[in-house]
């Protein structure tokens, strides 16, 4: 009976007043036992090491990425070696286009000053046409020579 009363007092269900030493010892013993049980029942887990977790994930991701990159480079190089037309055709076309442009686009050229005098009309004096048919860059000069 005293033990049940001590349990109730330890659980806070009964008032803890004017206890005789034996009952108080019982109450203290129950409280100590409750604390022990509560502590044993509480899970003691350390927080997970997220830093290590992410370091692992990153390491695996990096390894996978490098492997993928190596595989891509190898595949690309293999394609170039096995199918030279893949790169020779566009490079050849670009070279041909550049050569065509260089040949067709006019650069700094001397102006064509070739001039054709169709007719002249004068009442006095004379006209001399000074031109060099072999050198179209040389300008024609129409000399009007007044008499007297």
């Amino acid at each position, binding site marked *: 009976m005293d033990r049940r009363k001590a349990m109730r007092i330890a659980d806070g269900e009964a008032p803890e007043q004017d206890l005789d030493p034996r009952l108080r010892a019982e109450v203290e013993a129950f409280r100590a036992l409750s604390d022990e049980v509560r502590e044993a029942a509480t899970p003691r887990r350390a927080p997970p090491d997220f830093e290590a977790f992410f370091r692992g994930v990153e390491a695996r991701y990096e390894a996978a990425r490098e492997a993928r990159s190596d595989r891509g480079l190898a595949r690309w190089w293999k394609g170039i070696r096995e199918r030279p037309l893949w790169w020779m055709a566009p490079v050849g076309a670009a070279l041909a286009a550049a050569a065509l442009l260089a040949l067709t686009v006019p650069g700094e050229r001397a*102006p*064509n*000053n*070739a*001039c*054709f*005098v*169709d*007719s*002249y*009309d*004068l*009442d*006095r*004096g004379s*006209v001399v046409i*000074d031109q060099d048919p072999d*050198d*179209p*860059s*040389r*300008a*024609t*000069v*129409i*000399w*009007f*020579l*007044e008499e007297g």
Partner: protein
Amino acid sequence: MLRRGIRVWVFAAATLALAASAMPRKAAAEPRAEVTLTVILARREPPKLHPGLQKMWDTLRRSFGDKFSFFDLAGETSRRLAEGERVETTLPNGDRFAAIFQGVTEDKGLLRIHLEMGEFRTKVRVHDGGVFFQAGRRHGDATVLIGVRAALVP
């Protein structure tokens, strides 16, 4: 009702087609030329080239290098001309000099230029951008050279 609607639409389409055909068509773009007259006083010596003639130096040297070494700029006139229009300048001796743009030849695309200076008339054809000279008039101890440059403009 449907037939009447169709008739209205056909009439409207025919009216629009008639109006479109009656509208004046856009005329083909007539050629325009920029004609520049450069008046130069030339002497045998002393050697001189006016700064304004530096761009013409190669042409002057090739055309007059054996006759003159002194080139002074007396004036420059430039104008964009439609067919039949003229550009004029007054020479140092008071004479008037005119160049008239008379269009472009169909076969080779040469520019037709007519020159007028007093009683002297001449007709020439030049390449697009080409230069030629009229020379011979005297002004003091100098010879008057008139450079004519004609170039098509868009």
